[in-house]
């Protein structure tokens, strides 16, 4: 039996980006907040200190700072005709465990989605007609608009000290920035990162082809920075160890480097580590959350009563908790009814490796050091002749030149031995790669539910993921890859190797950690789990944060939008606290 603890006002499940923002905002509003984190406490020093963090074998290969599948994992299948099997190693995506969540190990690629992304159904129908949308695609509007989110994007970017070049300030296009971006109230807080040789090559080639390249927005501080909370960040050293590593220089935005120094001083905030939440508890009406149950590191079970529960875990875990807690109607793909687990989406990536002669020194990198073109993202181009929905950016990222996993060799190079060494010697300093980063829409056949067979360390059924790349996405990705190759070929003396993404989706090789959906937001309780403020339709004192609320995935990295939605939701929570109840009535 779970032992009951004294109640708190608000309990947060997880202590990463979204929990840190919610905690900061709600403690400012005067309520008492407790965050429960399944992983460990971590801080820049000693955990990410520069005397040991740049260890590719330990962190990237042996995956030191991610969740461990022996405690929690998921089962996977491509479609309902297969039997899902558990993932015993992390693969295609890497959820974090520990304070700061994936905010510790991300690259810092901090984008805004396009205005049309939030109204994609309406926009697509208007421009291309209803018939343009495949019948099995659960395309839907978000219930929130870009204009509503703009101030919240701004807050997140200023919190993080994003380095970048604005392309559209108040409707006025600004040279050098992304001409396709939605209007922003003001520029980025910091100037773009320094260019590196490969992004200069890309920039020149993309212009030659006729595109408008711009520096990617980076939550890697290009200058020393003090954010609006008064927290200080150091200048990026271009060490090239962002993704899958913590930052040792206080340069990459994370909860630790932007919020925690202020939050942890507050008397009305507490957090506990090594506490895995296993249930959201509800009263006998099922309409009110009474708190959560968690298991501590010794295996003891505790009940933590709370007035309000906010799910701030990784996308999958939020959905899993809703399912095992029996909150909301689980999705049924056959009838396309029910909501929890509905509209899971991912992203589709591909690359074009470029072999040329100029020396590039790839080891001088940063997680979000890149140059991109946005001509083929969202609806920035005419989809009519292409016959697919969605798009993505094309970018040359120079995240680093780590010796084990970050090098590009010609297709015919041997995979081992003296031939491999020779190829490595000849190409390490001169090869680079252009990436495409494409949207994935939601389909009836892509969803999350509970596995009938496999259970986790706490006795809960594992989450089951059913997902495959659909023809729409493969077509879109192929189109993007061709455009990327076009840029690659414009680099002087370049040989390109086009690496298109083919189906079926494999969960084994790493692709991206941008999983979305399963607890999506919207204006219709029949097709969404939470309302436009991220408040549960069924249980109004329960809220869901993070990318699990995305109705489908856009062509950008999600963290900027996750941050903006969190601030947007926090503002709504403050209204809710004054007058608890559903913020949207049906």
């Amino acid at each position, binding site marked *: 039996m779970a032992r009951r603890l004294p109640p708190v006002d608000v309990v947060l499940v997880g202590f990463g980006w979204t929990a840190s923002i919610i905690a900061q905002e709600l403690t400012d509003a005067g309520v008492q907040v407790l965050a429960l984190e399944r992983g460990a406490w971590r*801080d820049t020093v000693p955990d990410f200190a520069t005397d040991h963090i740049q260890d590719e074998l330990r962190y990237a290969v042996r995956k030191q700072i991610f969740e461990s599948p022996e405690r929690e994992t998921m089962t996977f299948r491509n479609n309902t005709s297969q039997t899902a099997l558990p993932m015993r190693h992390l693969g295609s995506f890497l959820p974090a465990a520990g304070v700061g969540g994936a905010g510790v190990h991300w690259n810092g690629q901090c984008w805004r989605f396009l205005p049309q992304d939030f109204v994609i159904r309406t926009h697509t129908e208007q421009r291309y007609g209803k018939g343009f949308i495949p019948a099995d695609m659960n395309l839907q509007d978000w219930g929130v608009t870009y204009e509503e989110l703009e101030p919240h994007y701004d807050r997140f970017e200023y919190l993080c000290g994003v380095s970048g070049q604005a392309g559209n300030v108040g409707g006025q296009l600004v040279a050098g920035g992304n001409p396709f971006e939605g209007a922003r109230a003001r520029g980025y807080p910091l100037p773009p990162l320094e260019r590196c040789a490969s992004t200069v090559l890309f920039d020149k080639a993309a212009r030659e082809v006729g595109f408008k390249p711009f520096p990617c927005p980076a939550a890697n501080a290009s200058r020393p920075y003090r954010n609006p909370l008064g927290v200080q960040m150091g200048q990026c050293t271009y060490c090239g160890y962002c993704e899958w590593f913590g930052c040792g220089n206080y340069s990459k935005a994370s909860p630790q480097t932007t919020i925690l120094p202020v939050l942890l001083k507050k008397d009305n905030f507490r957090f506990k580590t090594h506490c895995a939440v296993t249930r959201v508890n509800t009263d006998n009406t099922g309409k009110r959350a009474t708190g959560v149950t968690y298991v501590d590191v010794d295996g003891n079970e505790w009940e933590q009563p709370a007035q309000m529960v906010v799910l701030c875990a990784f996308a999958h875990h939020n959905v899993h908790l809703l399912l095992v807690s029996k909150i909301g109607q689980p999705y049924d793909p056959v009838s396309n009814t029910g909501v929890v687990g509905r509209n899971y989406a991912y992203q589709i990536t591909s690359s074009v490796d470029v072999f040329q002669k100029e020396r590039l020194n790839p080891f001088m990198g940063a997680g979000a050091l890149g140059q991109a073109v946005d001509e083929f993202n969202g609806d920035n181009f005419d989809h009519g002749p292409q016959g697919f929905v969605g798009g993505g950016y094309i970018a040359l990222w120079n995240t680093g030149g780590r010796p084990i996993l970050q090098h590009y060799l010609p297709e015919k190079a041997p995979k081992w031995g003296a031939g491999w060494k020779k190829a490595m010697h000849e190409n390490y300093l001169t090869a680079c790669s252009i990436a495409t980063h494409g949207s994935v829409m939601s389909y009836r056949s892509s969803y999350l539910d509970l596995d009938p067979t496999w259970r986790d360390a706490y006795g809960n059924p594992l989450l089951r993921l059913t997902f495959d790349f659909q023809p729409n996405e493969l077509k879109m990705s192929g189109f993007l890859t061709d455009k990327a190759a076009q840029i690659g070929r414009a680099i002087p003396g370049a040989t390109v190797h086009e690496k298109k993404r083919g189906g079926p989706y494999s969960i084994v090789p790493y692709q991206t950690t941008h999983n979305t959906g399963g607890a999506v937001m919207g204006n219709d309780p029949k097709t969404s789990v939470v309302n436009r403020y991220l408040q549960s339709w069924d249980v109004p004192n329960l809220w869901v944060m993070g990318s699990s609320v995305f109705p489908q995935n856009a062509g950008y990295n999600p963290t900027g939008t996750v941050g903006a939605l969190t601030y947007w939701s926090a503002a709504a929570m403050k209204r809710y606290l004054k007058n608890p109840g559903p913020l949207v009535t049906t």
Partner: protein
Amino acid sequence: MSAARLFGFGCLLALLAVCAACSHDRDEAAPSTVKLGERMSPGPWGQISRGRYLVRAGDCAACHTAEGGAPFAGDRAIPTPFGTIYSSNITPDPDTGIGRWTDEDFYRAMHEGIDREGDHLYPAFPYPWYTRLSRDDVLAIKAYLDTLTPVRQAHRPDELPWPLDQRGVMAVWNGMYFDAGTFQPDPKRSPQWNRGAYLVKGLGHCGACHSDKNFAGATDKDDPLTGGFAENAFAPSLAGGTRDGLGSWPEQDIVQYLGTGRNGRTSAAGPMAEVVEDSTQYLSKPDLQAIAVYLKSLPARKDSAVASVDKDTLDRGAALYVDNCEGCHLKQGQGEPGAFPPLRQSSAVQAKSADTLINVILNGSRIPRTAAEPTGLAMQGFADHLDDAQIADLTTYIRNAWGNRGEAVDAGHVEDLRKSLRQSPGG
């Protein structure tokens, strides 16, 4: 974190000294014409809140609160060159604290270093500085301490060798090194200067670390603040040297440093980080300003000559600097204003002794977290990463690069510091 303030007291040699003279009390001297202390409203509330302010100004918690222990209940180990002393319980517990102490008992302890039972206290308790406090201030401190929750925490016996464990020895020490006496304002100086001097030489007990100590652990009665050793670190000179003192610091930089733990020149490290976090950040702007005015008035000293350093050492040090330090402190040692402290032109880096620098390289450091500047930017230690010779080369390089000047460091000294850091309780 290693324990707090200073230092020592008598030693065997002191015992041999003949003098057993009593301290001279100058309390009876002419009354002050300068108003001292915080200008707070009279009455118990004003007195208590003034006491709370003064307790912070004196950083009493640093010694009287053990790590993880109840506030002001004592039992913190204070390492001294002579043995370990345990701080006393100053909560108002009648049996183990100061619950039965009268105002007079308390004043005598602060003013003369003698406790309620009439025993001499060891000057690890900085009564040589506290003696300068006005009676009003001492009683305000007592009034505040009386409001604390009484905590039962008996005094742990000090670990001192004979004959230092005999408190009577301290009468000899006092005779040689201690004059009781309230601060006497200098009428030729401004009230602001006098306020600063009162805080620095009194409650602030800055000289406990920042002044040199003799073999008996005693500070020169003039309290010159020209730098001194404290807890494996060297507290740099606060006097007017331009290289290793505060000569080139404008007053505003001193105010910012004490108020926030950092400024454009440096950041607090080692024991001083604790002092800023627990004490100086709470001082009022006028008080910080007054301290700055006083410190800036200290006489400038000529920078000492430094022997030149051989090129091989500098080359080795420079290579180590690139690999280990340059990411944050940058190529020219300029640091990142607003984040990481510069090393170029740093008085702490160029101090007479390199111990603070070596200590930071070995153990790392965290900039204090203050209300004004909440970020505890930290540097990891390199004790497991660099050997003694490398740390010596690196330290020598940093002390002599970009126009810096400082005596070279040898590997044997790093080895000694590494050992003593390992041995220090809580270190």
